[in-house]
């Protein structure tokens, strides 16, 4: 088994030079958290050094705007010790030699931080060995400057390009013997580094899924039942075939898995516009199945009824909440609600597929290509080895493209018509066939003692089930804050059966839970008569690590000291409590730990007498460990995440009526716009902890910070989203 530990293989690259194929122990989630990972060996990266010194680094993960296509190669380039300007980046296809080709969960940083630096360091060591042999000197006398090996005593140097072919013949170093750079010597990591594709983006070069063009390609649309999972009974598809430009129109009998191929009618034409126009003539009879109770109004009524009874199950019970409420000086109750949300990726779902002779080539803007290939294999009945998936830059992901329903639709349609096909959804298709952020209802009760301390806390969380189990991303962990910090605490849950599919959306669970819990904690601080920062610091107590409850979601625990740190810094940066604010203006604080990141945010907002909300400023402070890998992108991601949360809070809800999503476009689901967007100031608190991810954890505090600011400004407590549905006016 020792051989499996040998993590790098070197070979001559085509056209000369060193091809470094790195197989390193896979870093499982357990390993990130400081536990031993399974000793599996998996390919991790490619480094190719050409004789002219140019270095090509493969970016293994899908790029959806999170900046990972630069960030991962930065880690390799740093330890390889090459000039960033000499690096070219290639996007990998889906390839079983790479681990975790996924854009999700803010995991790319923690899972790749060490292994990809080791890949670079191993390459550097082989180049040094080759140079030492050339000069017949000890390797210990050699060091590197970017792209060069230098023999210090004699001052001789050789370029990586010159050495690459020889280096490929040297043994691959043991990962355990590799020396990594001292962070103070970093030349690439920690430096603001531009998106390598920004020049192509600003000049409109084709690069997104929707831009893919294949010779002989036809264009497709696919009409499904707007009641999710409805079955096709009959259609007038034969008449559609005679419409202008239409090459094919046919019924599809799909399965029952909402993530897979579903019933529908495909229309394939010479242009997308003709295909979509022909589709308007479709007349389809659906069997919608049982839609009783499947409306947002029914869900709210059911939740209110459930709240009157005991929870169906108890998630967590600490102390004696009932007795503690009896002893509390003040007890308050409040009902919170957040709605279903659509991901609204700006690039609607699309995929191009070319099926020929039992093989299929797919170009997909996907966050999660591996399950897509499995789905295509199972649905089309072809082996995975006959499937090629090219990961194309995606115009936003936010979790929607973790599902590959559009991929299997394109593959199926291409197989039926026997030609390359680009399937493109309309905005309405996208909004009505999403995997929605689940709505949720929280019935809170909290009690504070005479000193303003939180004595007891309970939540009856009414959420949704699908086929008997809790719906995707609709669950709540037993460690949800403030659990572990309140002596008497109860979390209970009840579930409403749901037909519409749900799924992860940027900061899954946390994006709704953060709003509800952090708003109610603000109410409790108000009830206690405490300043919000003081109340939070009292609740957190002295710096310490609170271990997670055992289970599949167990992480590294919750560090109260790190949370205190970001709260104190955001209070400082925002001038918390130091300004006399005009009438109608208020500041709100919220803090949240998710995806291994600690974030505290302050929003300053003004509400006019007519009820119009102006967000004046947002301050974001995050602790994601010891190193901000790319500060230029980190600021952008944190600003975007905070504004994403604010946009959802202000104007977004997806409502269900008779089993169908009511909204279809941006006139009813309102994305944030320039006129609403405040300045967002971002600070990172650097702490001595391993670097963690940033796509998600800056989002959850933004919504409650805004709600709390509105309360501070107006005295009105908003307990349901979106804000646009609330009248905040103070004029008669």
């Amino acid at each position: 088994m020792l051989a499996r530990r040998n993590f790098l293989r070197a070979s001559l690259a085509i056209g000369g030079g060193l091809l470094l194929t790195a197989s390193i122990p896979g870093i499982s989630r357990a390993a990130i958290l400081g536990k031993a990972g399974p000793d599996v060996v998996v390919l991790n990266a490619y480094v190719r050094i050409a004789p002219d010194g140019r270095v090509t680094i493969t970016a293994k993960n899908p790029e959806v705007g999170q900046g990972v296509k630069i960030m991962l190669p930065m880690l390799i380039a740093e330890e390889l010790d090459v000039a960033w300007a000499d690096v070219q980046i290639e996007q990998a296809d889906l390839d079983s030699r790479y681990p975790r080709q996924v854009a999700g969960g803010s995991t790319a940083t923690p899972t790749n931080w060490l292994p990809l630096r080791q890949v670079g360091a191993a390459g550097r060591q082989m180049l040094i060995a080759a140079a030492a042999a050339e000069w017949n000197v000890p390797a210990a006398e050699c060091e590197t400057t970017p792209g060069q090996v230098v023999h210090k005593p004699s001052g001789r140097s050789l370029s990586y390009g010159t050495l690459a072919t020889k280096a490929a013949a040297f043994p691959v170093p043991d990962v355990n013997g590799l020396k990594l750079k001292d962070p103070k010597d970093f030349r690439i990591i920690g430096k603001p580094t531009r998106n390598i594709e920004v020049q192509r983006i600003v000049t409109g070069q084709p690069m997104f899924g929707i831009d893919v063009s294949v010779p002989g390609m036809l264009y497709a649309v696919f009409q499904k039942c707007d009641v999710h999972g409805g079955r096709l009974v009959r259609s007038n598809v034969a008449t559609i075939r005679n419409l202008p430009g239409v090459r094919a129109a046919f019924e599809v009998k799909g399965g029952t898995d909402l993530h897979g191929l579903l019933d529908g009618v495909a229309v394939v034409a010479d242009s997308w516009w003709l295909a979509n126009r022909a589709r308007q003539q479709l007349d389809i009879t659906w069997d919608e199945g049982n839609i009783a109770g499947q409306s947002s109004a029914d869900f709210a009524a059911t939740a209110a009824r459930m709240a009157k009874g005991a929870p169906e199950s108890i998630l967590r019970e600490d102390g004696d909440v009932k007795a503690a409420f009896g002893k509390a000086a003040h007890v308050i109750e409040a009902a919170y609600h957040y709605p279903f949300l659509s991901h609204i990726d700006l690039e609607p779902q699309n995929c191009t597929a070319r099926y020929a002779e039992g093989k299929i080539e797919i170009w997909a803007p996907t966050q999660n290509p591996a399950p897509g290939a499995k789905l295509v294999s199972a649905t089309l009945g072809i082996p995975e080895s006959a499937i090629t998936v090219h990961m194309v830059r995606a115009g936003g992901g936010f979790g929607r493209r973790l599902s590959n329903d559009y991929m299997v639709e394109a593959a199926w349609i291409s197989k039926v018509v026997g030609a390359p096909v680009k399937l493109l959804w309309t905005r309405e298709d996208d909004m009505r066939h999403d995997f929605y952020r689940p709505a949720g209802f929280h019935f809170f009760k909290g009690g504070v003692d005479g000193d303003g301390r939180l004595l007891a806390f309970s939540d009856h969380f009414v959420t949704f089930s699908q086929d008997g189990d809790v719906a995707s991303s609709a669950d709540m962990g037993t460690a949800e804050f403030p659990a572990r910090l309140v002596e008497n605490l109860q979390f209970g849950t009840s579930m409403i059966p749901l037909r519409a599919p749900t799924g992860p959306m940027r900061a899954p669970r946390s994006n709704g839970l953060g709003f509800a819990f952090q708003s109610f904690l603000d109410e409790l601080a108000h009830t206690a008569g405490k300043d919000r920062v003081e109340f939070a610091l009292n609740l957190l107590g002295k710096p310490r690590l609170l271990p997670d409850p055992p289970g599949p979601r167990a992480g590294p625990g919750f560090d109260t000291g790190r949370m205190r740190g970001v709260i104190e810094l955001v209070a400082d940066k925002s001038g918390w409590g130091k300004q006399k604010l005009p009438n109608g203006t208020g500041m709100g604080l919220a803090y949240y730990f998710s995806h291994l990141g600690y974030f505290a945010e302050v929003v300053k907002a003004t509400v006019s007498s007519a009820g119009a909300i102006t967000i004046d400023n947002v301050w974001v402070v995050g602790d994601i460990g010891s190193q901000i890998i790319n500060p230029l992108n980190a600021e952008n991601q944190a600003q975007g995440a905070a504004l994403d949360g604010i946009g959802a809070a202000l104007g977004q809800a997806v409502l269900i009526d008779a089993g169908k999503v009511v909204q279809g476009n941006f006139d009813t689901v309102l994305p944030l716009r320039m006129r609403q967007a405040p300045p967002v100031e971002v600070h990172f608190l650097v702490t001595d902890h391993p670097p963690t991810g940033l796509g998600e954890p800056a989002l959850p505090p933004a919504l409650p910070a805004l709600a709390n600011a509105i309360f501070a400004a107006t005295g009105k407590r908003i307990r349901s989203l979106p804000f646009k549905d609330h009248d905040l006016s103070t004029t008669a």
Partner: protein
Amino acid sequence: MQFTIQVNGAPRHVDIDGETPLLWVLRDTLDLKGTKFGCGAAQCGACTVHMDGDPIRSCQTPIASVGNAAITTIEAIGETKVGRNVQAAWVDLDVPQCGYCQAGQIMSATALLVRVPAPTDQDINDAMSGNVCRCATYTRIRAAIKQAAAAGRT
């Protein structure tokens, strides 16, 4: 039907249904894929192009209505001084995240700066609020417009 439209300074001949939106003529007939489809309802601005210098939503502009107007797309906006300044500011400040909306943003920003060389925040709000950035890069878009405006004064 036959149409001849002026795109990026050159006449282009297309034989197409007159109701076809300009967006799809640009993307799928003329292979100019920089202009994007986002909503099909003039709600998001991803399809913004210039018609005689004015920003328009090409998804709501039938080819038959274009006539002899000069159409400029993201692929050619860098041939103007203002467009070049806007693109340079976008690169310098590393504005994009996913990048999908940015062609439309740049077309709207360029039209603004041609009309108002030194825009106020309110001018920027008024001119840019029709362009959705789902990644919410608004902080940098605003800064880039100001930087491009400053570059235009030198």
